[in-house]
């Protein structure tokens, strides 16, 4: 089961247009051997197109795809050293789970003994041994995706490609299978690209996360770095459920009453957008008086929707505070708020 090592993936200058739509805009990406990179971004940003270009299911207009040191740009999908798991279950309905897992090996002419041995090995790895002789429609969605994962791994590909493999599953199964995929990926030490639009999923599973927007990779970073230090206003807005406030710059300083004072970054014009996470809004520890518009209890945390008066339109933001500190806060009431300037990311407004 364990293997010497799988190769890395190197993408350079990949562009793809569909008519006037620019699905991929000069994307380059280096995936180290054994690394799992999550492609994270909103719907339509080009995640699937990028993954399919690696698989060879989509032919980019330009760019190079190198897998395990071999340039496969001109190779058709079936000749590439890849394994792929799709969003919706595409196990072959006419075959048992075991036959599905053995399929890639049979297509490569492996002997039936070898096929069966390897299939059973993989089924054990993904925890499907008991369902081996069932047909896909006789097992659950999560089990089908385990089967699809085993099938993708069967021919020992250099890279594993997963396109939102969990999005058709319900929340509980999703988290469990996510961790399972990560465990197996690390155990097999296979290089992997994992497409998702769920930031929590991307953060939990990946070594590094590539945030995509409009056909480009905006930022490529380890989950913690991405969470704390978004490099662009897009990543700041997309990752971490941040507040986003558009504020004026006066004498190089960004200010929200007594709640926030921060230096504007060099080169920002008259207006900036300040991003900050709801847990970095401190309530009841001095600052500017804000009106409580809504209080929503969420277990450990309580989320407050606040409105801070400015000269014109009031600034709206939300704050998360430990629920035990939220007792006595009433809708319509007033509390002082202060935003921790060390954790505010400021970008020029567009």
């Amino acid at each position, binding site marked *: 089961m364990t293997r010497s090592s799988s190769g890395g993936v190197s993408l350079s200058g990949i562009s793809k247009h569909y008519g006037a739509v620019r699905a991929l805009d000069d994307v380059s990406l280096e995936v180290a051997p054994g690394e799992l990179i999550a492609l994270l971004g909103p719907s339509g940003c080009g995640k699937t197109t990028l993954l399919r270009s690696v698989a060879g299911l989509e032919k980019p207009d330009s760019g190079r795809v190198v897998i395990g040191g071999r340039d496969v740009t001109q190779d058709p*999908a079936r000749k590439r050293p890849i394994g792929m798991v799709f969003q919706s279950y595409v196990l072959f309905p006419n*075959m048992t789970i075991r036959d599905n897992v053995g399929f890639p090996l049979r297509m490569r002419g492996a002997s039936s003994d070898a096929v069966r041995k390897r299939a059973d090995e993989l089924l054990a790895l993904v925890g499907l041994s008991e369902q081996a002789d069932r047909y896909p429609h006789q097992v659950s969605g999560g089990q089908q995706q385990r089967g699809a994962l085993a099938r993708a791994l069967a021919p020992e590909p250099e890279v594993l490609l997963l396109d939102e493999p969990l999005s058709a599953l319900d929340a509980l199964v999703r988290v469990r299978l996510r961790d399972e995929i990560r465990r197996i990926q690390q155990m097999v030490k296979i290089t992997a690209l994992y497409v998702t639009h769920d930031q929590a999923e991307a953060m939990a599973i990946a070594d590094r996360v590539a945030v995509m927007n409009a056909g480009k990779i905006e930022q490529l970073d380890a989950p913690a770095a991405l969470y704390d230090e978004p490099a662009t206003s897009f990543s700041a807005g997309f990752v971490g459920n941040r507040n986003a406030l558009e504020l004026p710059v006066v004498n190089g300083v960004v200010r929200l009453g007594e709640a926030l004072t921060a230096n504007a970054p060099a080169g920002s014009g008259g207006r900036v957008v300040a991003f900050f996470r709801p847990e970095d809004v401190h309530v009841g520890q001095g600052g500017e008086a804000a009106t409580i518009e809504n209080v929503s209890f969420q277990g450990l945390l309580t989320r407050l929707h606040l409105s801070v008066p400015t000269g014109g339109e009031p600034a709206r933001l939300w704050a998360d505070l430990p629920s035990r500190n939220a007792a006595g806060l009433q809708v319509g009431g007033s509390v002082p708020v202060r935003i921790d300037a060390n954790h505010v990311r400021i970008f020029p407004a567009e």
Partner: protein
Amino acid sequence: MVHLGRIGRWAFFAFIALYLAIPMVAVILYSFSARWTSNILPDAYTLAHWGEAFRDERMRNAFWRTTWMAIAVLLLDIVLVVPAVYWQRVRNPKIRVFAELSAAIPFVLPFIVIAFGILKFMGRSAPQMLGTPLIILLSHAAIAFPFLYWAVDGAMAAANVGRLNEAAVVCGASPLQTLRHVILPNISSGLAAGGMLVFATSFGEFALVQILAGSRFENISLYSLDLLLNTTSQVELMAVLTILMFVVLFGISVAVVYLNRGREGGFLPGSRALVTEKNE
């Protein structure tokens, strides 16, 4: 809808059953009748016509010819249609318009018109083909393929062939391997239904055979017509023949229905899954 009571429903069902059964029963009785005058049932029964029919070499030949022709037409159409529809669905959706237009022609033009068209065309370009089994094979394949086309196309849509194909491709399967191991098993019900219609179309076809080959390729339809035209005493033979044809076609339909029982997607275990899937 009119709501029939329990009795009403049974009466209605009985009426339909009778309406369908009486001609068949009459034909069966006729094939066993020695003499049938003005009574509601034959005056006397005999096995003579059945014996005669099976001894009649001309009839045996006609039956045999018709059967193998229908099988050949079916095989040719499968070989032509299945890869074409597969290709159209996974690679080149643009040929769809062309395929659908040509698949509509046999429904729009009467067979007799098509037959004359082929006759004119072949008469000019390859007259030596006329009267050969080959021309019958080709023209039957041409008029019957739409039945297979629509059935296979529908089955491929239902089985989500595009997605199955991609899954097979990333597993390293070649197009032929994909077709054989993944596509065909998942469209088998459509293949069977369409195939039956193709078989039946060729099996009972009259106009093209008559015009393009005539007595040089005497199939059951031509032979039946001959029986009817020649002498009145041959009508019992005709009854035997009718029953035989019915049995063949009915047998095939029953087989198709039986193999497909309880399945929407295909013959094979598990092939229902994609049809019932709710994704996308």
